């Protein structure tokens, strides 16, 4: 089956982020989006540990252990960037000041519930970080994930079976098969990977989908 590559998914997400946007990129797949943001746009990357105007990774040898991102990897600061403490940083997130966040997910429900922090397994040590604040705080919550699990189950579900991160918070889902909007009247497919029939996408996803998607 034809699929969007991870880089193609990242480029597609980046395409949606306009000039002047304040953006938080979550851990994992979403970090790839940074590589695809057009250089001619001023886009402000936020990191939960107190950075606005975050730049790319430093050259080898230039790492500064006092300048890291949320994944605790070394980063740089762009001219005009700034530092602030944690309560201010989460005021930016919870207070609706970020235009976009891009998050990975285990599951998204048809009503936009997000599950991305915990598998719920008994022996798994739970860790949540800033995921719940981003899910309910950013103006637009974008999710980037593979459409199907390794066993072929849809990660877009009628109701999340993994523990919830936030209720009715996801706006748009970018998968390796399609781009899907969560709307008050259900899921609307806006793009579909070339070579995949809409009926086949419906069969794989297993929840109601509508739309007249253009091939991506």
């Amino acid at each position: 089956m034809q699929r969007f590559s991870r880089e193609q998914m990242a480029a597609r997400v980046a395409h949606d982020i306009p000039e002047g946007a304040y953006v938080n990129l979550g851990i994992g797949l979403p970090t790839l989006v940074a590589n695809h943001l057009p250089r001619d746009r001023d886009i402000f990357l936020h990191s939960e540990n107190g950075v606005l105007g975050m730049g790319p990774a430093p050259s080898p040898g230039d790492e500064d252990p006092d300048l890291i991102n949320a994944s605790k990897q070394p980063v740089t600061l762009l001219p005009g960037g700034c530092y602030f403490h944690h309560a201010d940083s989460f005021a930016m997130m919870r207070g609706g000041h970020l235009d976009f966040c891009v998050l990975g997910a285990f599951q998204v429900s048809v009503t936009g519930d997000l599950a991305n922090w915990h598998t719920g397994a008994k022996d798994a040590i739970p860790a949540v970080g800033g995921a719940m604040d981003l899910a309910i705080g950013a103006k637009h919550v974008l999710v980037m994930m593979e459409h199907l699990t390794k066993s072929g189950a849809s990660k877009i579900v009628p109701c999340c079976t993994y523990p919830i991160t936030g209720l009715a918070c996801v706006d748009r889902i970018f998968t390796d098969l399609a781009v899907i909007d969560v709307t008050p009247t259900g899921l609307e497919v806006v793009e579909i990977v070339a070579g995949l029939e809409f009926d086949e996408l419906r069969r794989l996803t297993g929840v109601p989908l509508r739309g007249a998607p253009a091939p991506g």
Partner: protein
Amino acid sequence: MIDKTLASPAAAVTDIGDAATVMIGGFGTAGMPYALIDALIDAGARDLTIVNNNAGNGDVGLAALIREKRVRKIICSFPRQVDSQHFDTAWRAREIELELVPQGNLAERIRAAGAGIGAFFTPTGYGTALAEGKETRVIDGRHYVLEYPIHADFALIGADRGDRWGNLVYRKTARNFGPVMAAAARCTIAQVREIVPLGTLDPEHIVTPGIFVHRVVAIDAPVVRRARADA
């Protein structure tokens, strides 16, 4: 003459007793006050409740405090990391209690304590397992969860420079929880790279005013020890 500087980390932590609640600054390894934690381990306090974003990295700092079985409970947002093995072992052996808090609620609960707030309603966590059993309210059509402040007996924080009145400035992302923790503890102890004469720090740039800081210790070594972490 007020002089909050102390000669050694040992002198700064000597009165931290068993069962104390201790906030420890730092996000991963950035801003973690290693010298103060080493002194705390040497001082021998047990049954501590620790507040930090994580649960230790590698074999140093907070990880060493957990390895030495001094921590009864930890309040944090992200314990599980590639190098959190001492926490992982203690948690699986049920030797440590974990209160998991979404990171923004953690920061705001600490801030609220320092600001004299009795409790606050936050949208973060509503409808999740981390809000189970908590009071909720609908305000202007939106759901909120009631969260209470986190107070501490002591805060141990890492800063870049300080003066004898306790004014502090930080360095880059090592600032993180330092300023909010400083205000939330009955006694705040800062480890700094350098103590400068009064008046040296630009008053427009002081991040933590000295009213929140009770003891300052200069550490003649890098504040940060590198330890690998993935989250």
